[in-house]
């Protein structure tokens, strides 16, 4: 059956603020699934808590809106129980890098084939604009009583050292580019992380749409306007790992790139490594038929309702003689 873009949408009323960056991400996800021709029922989108957490309700695939910070373990559990599913995980920066940071780091150790998208706006929007883990030190967004006293997390660098195997960034108002970054992430076999810069029009009055889309003037030639956001691939950056020896250099390069902020903010693919075995492959090496007969698809009872199992061997091990 052929699917249309509309097949990935639900009639659920969307209550995000007008001008919210989340809309761009939502559209990019729907378009990615449509363009990759993923049947809606074979995909499941998991989300954390916050404005971004509502995303699954607007997408016509299985939608699992989980707990604050726990989106990754929920999603990983589903993927490992049924590796045939296409699993996406979405959530805010507070959700994934604050309360969920332990899961973020440990997911990297597993490299399960999931695509994780963080809606990064620097604030806790739904609770009215507190500082999130990605808000820079000293910033005072409008609802903060005092400037931010914490330093910020660098999500790209954290993903690099945690073991994510596809690490990219997008900007929520450049849907076309963002969609391509997400599609690559979905197609990447392994754990993908996409950091999406997403203005919060209501609470982040510093990193606004205007701020992201501003220009600086070239020192030597003031007639040249340099856009703040630029695409890595357009400036000759290549984060794809060709061989294993190359991997640590590429990680260091990606981390260096990720430090660029203020006047020049890179988007695109920072790092990609196809050589790290996925957790599914690691399981497959222990369980011969894991992929074709994963936990979710096993027959556990016979037609009489009795256990489809023989544990005589295990009971024999316990026999007293």
């Amino acid at each position, binding site marked *: 059956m052929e699917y249309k873009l509309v097949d990935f949408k639900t009639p659920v009323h969307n209550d995000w603020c007008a001008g919210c960056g989340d809309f761009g991400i939502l559209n990019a996800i729907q378009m990615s699934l449509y363009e990759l021709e993923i049947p809606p*029922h074979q995909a499941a989108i998991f989300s954390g808590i916050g404005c971004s957490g509502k995303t699954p309700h607007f997408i016509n695939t299985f939608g*699992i*809106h989980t707990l604050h910070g726990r989106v990754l373990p929920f999603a990983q*559990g589903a993927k490992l129980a049924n590796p045939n599913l296409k699993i996406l995980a979405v959530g805010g920066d507070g959700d994934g890098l604050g309360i969920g940071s*332990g*899961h973020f780091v440990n997911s990297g150790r597993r490299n399960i084939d999931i695509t994780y998208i963080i809606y990064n706006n620097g604030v806790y929007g739904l609770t009215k604009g507190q500082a999130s883990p990605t808000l820079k030190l000293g910033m005072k967004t409008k609802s903060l009583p005092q400037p931010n006293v914490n330093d910020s997390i660098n999500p790209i660098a954290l993903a690099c050292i945690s073991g994510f195997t596809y690490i990219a960034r997008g900007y929520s108002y450049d849907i076309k580019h963002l969609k391509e970054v997400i599609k690559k992430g979905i197609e990447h076999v392994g754990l993908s992380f996409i950091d999406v810069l997403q203005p919060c029009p209501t609470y982040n009055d510093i990193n606004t749409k205007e701020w992201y889309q501003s220009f600086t003037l070239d020192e030597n030639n003031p007639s040249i306007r340099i856009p703040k956001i630029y695409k890595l691939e357009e400036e000759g950056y290549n984060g794809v790992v060709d061989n294993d020896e190359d991997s640590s250099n590429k990680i260091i390069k990606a981390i260096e790139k990720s430090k660029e902020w203020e006047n020049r903010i890179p988007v695109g693919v920072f790092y990609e490594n196809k050589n790290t075995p996925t957790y599914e492959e690691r399981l497959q090496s222990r*369980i011969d038929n894991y992929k074709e007969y994963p*936990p979710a698809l096993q027959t*556990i009872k016979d037609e009489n309702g009795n256990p489809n199992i023989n544990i005589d061997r*295990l009971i024999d091990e316990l026999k007293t003689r």
Partner: protein
Amino acid sequence: MVISRESISWVIGGPQGSGVDSASHIFLKSIAMSGLNVFGKREYHSNIKGEHSYFSVRFSNQVVRSPVDDIDILVTFDAETIVRHSPFLIKGGILIYDPDVVGKKIEDIHTLDKSSEKRISHILKSKNKEFSLAGIIEELKERKVILVELPYAKLISRFSEEIQDHSLSKLARITNVMSLAASLAVLDFDIPLMEQGILDTFANKPTIAELNVKAANFTYSYVKEKFGAIPEKFSFVTKIHNEVNSNSIIAQGNQTSPLGKIVAGCRFQTYYPITPATDDSEYLESNQILDQNDKNSGSVVVIQTEDEIAAITMAIGAALTGVRACTTTSGPGFSLMAEALGWAGINEVPLLVSLYQRAGPSTGLPTRQEQGDLLFAISAGHGEFPRIVYSSGDIEESFYDTIRVFNYADIFQTPVIHMLDKYLSNSIITCNPFEYKNLKIERGKISKGNSIDIKQQGFTDHFKRFKLSGDPISLRVPLGTENGIFWNTGDEHDEMGHITEDPETRISMMEKRLSKLELIRSRIPKEEQITIEFENNTNGNVKKLIVIVSWGSTKGAILDSLEKITEADDTIQFLYLQIKLLNPFPARLLEEIIDNKIEKLNTIDDTSSSIETIITIIEMNYLSQLDVLIKQNTKLQSDHNILKYNGRPMSHTEIYNSLINIINNQSERRVVLKDGV
């Protein structure tokens, strides 16, 4: 008080990491192979090496289900074990010890705890003995304890001569097998069975096995020659080879529940390392490839997560794909799981949590026994949602219960907490092999195949996961099912699973979920909710009925005690009930069983006077949490609470004594037991 001569109590102790475990394993295996029944339990510190640990085994030609305080045979190779355990040696018991440790000062045993020091000091003072190991030995002699000296160093060097192997560092590790062989010699135990026990324990290490067999035989004959005059009383039991039980198995609590999971079809389990729950997952992972009847090869995926929050949420994620999923933990981990438990509740996800209790709060006594988590298990998580809390009374039950609890989770589409504990997990029993082939797997309302027919299922346009109908249980479909797209959210949701704050929908959904509580009580068979574990039939005028109510692993010690009491005196009427379903609480059923019993006794009794009923609650906590539940839910008023919270399981000895006091009207309302090393 000497509790029983029909069973023998054997204890081996030593510093952790010194081989107490392998020695006890050989002992258990050998004894069980002879056809005797055994009950063993392991006590250890939260420590890797050096602190005192011990293993006690009680064995008999009759059924044994619990430990006793008295020791018949104490096997030691260090000073601390003598100091800690020798006070419990019965008159005429046997101490196997290294004469070289007698020179050690008690003050120099840095791992000795205050209770043990106080106990021995009190004994020595009252007997006018010097506060020293020599004093202890003298006191034991006075009590007619038989002293079997095993000078390990000397024996090892003689043994090394005999086998022409002088690598003493290797030989130093055989002290435990020597002590074990000495105790089997004392029992005049069958040598081939001892050898078999050793070979079995070291099955994967043939050279070590062989060396140990030689050392055991060497020690066995040494003891036989030197201490030929050991009284027969300890050997009578081992001479009875009970052929009837030749088919029995010897199983630990941390093997039976995972075995049950395999049979139940649990194919996904998560855990974060925690005592005493981890063994369950390790057993499962060690036996991860499964033989299916249909010749397919099954498997169970076991994941060690970064924390318990990931453990439960990963298991929930897996459960959404249709697999039977479980997470296994203990109190501290379960505390972290509370929020996610509510998520599974509001989204009606079948999920099993195996909760191996240990003494809390906080880290508490990490390796010790307690039943302190009952009220927490019943109320963990904010808000209201239905959950089943079910508990197992012994190791054998825990196998069958595991299949039940998975069925409950699927049938009622809600989380189930299976209460187990450290004592069950680390105890070992002989029992009948599990009859699993005819057990039923009931998956409740779940779609089969990879798609559903919307119209056939009665939906007009779109599948509704939380369809409101007369039945609180709606059709569940696994993720990936065609035409079955649904949404889940921790927010209140509508029939599709989308967020709603609509007050009417809220009422409908609350009622849908919480009406499951009544459904659970009405659908789970009564005998699965409360088991009548013991009921004797006295003749003649019964004036007193003692009703005992317990939950969980105190069962064995209670049953052993009741059998002993009623054997000696059949004029007391007992009714012993184990409550297995703890939430929703089977209140009416409990009242009904007790009322029926009283009524029955009244009709037998021809006098007009009514029967005095004494209700006794037995459990391992401070608050008497089961009693709290009983008072909350029923009109019943308890007369006695037998409690314990020192981290050591209730012994047969303690419960027997407590019940005798109740029979003789000499018991306090609240009895706190304190035994255990």
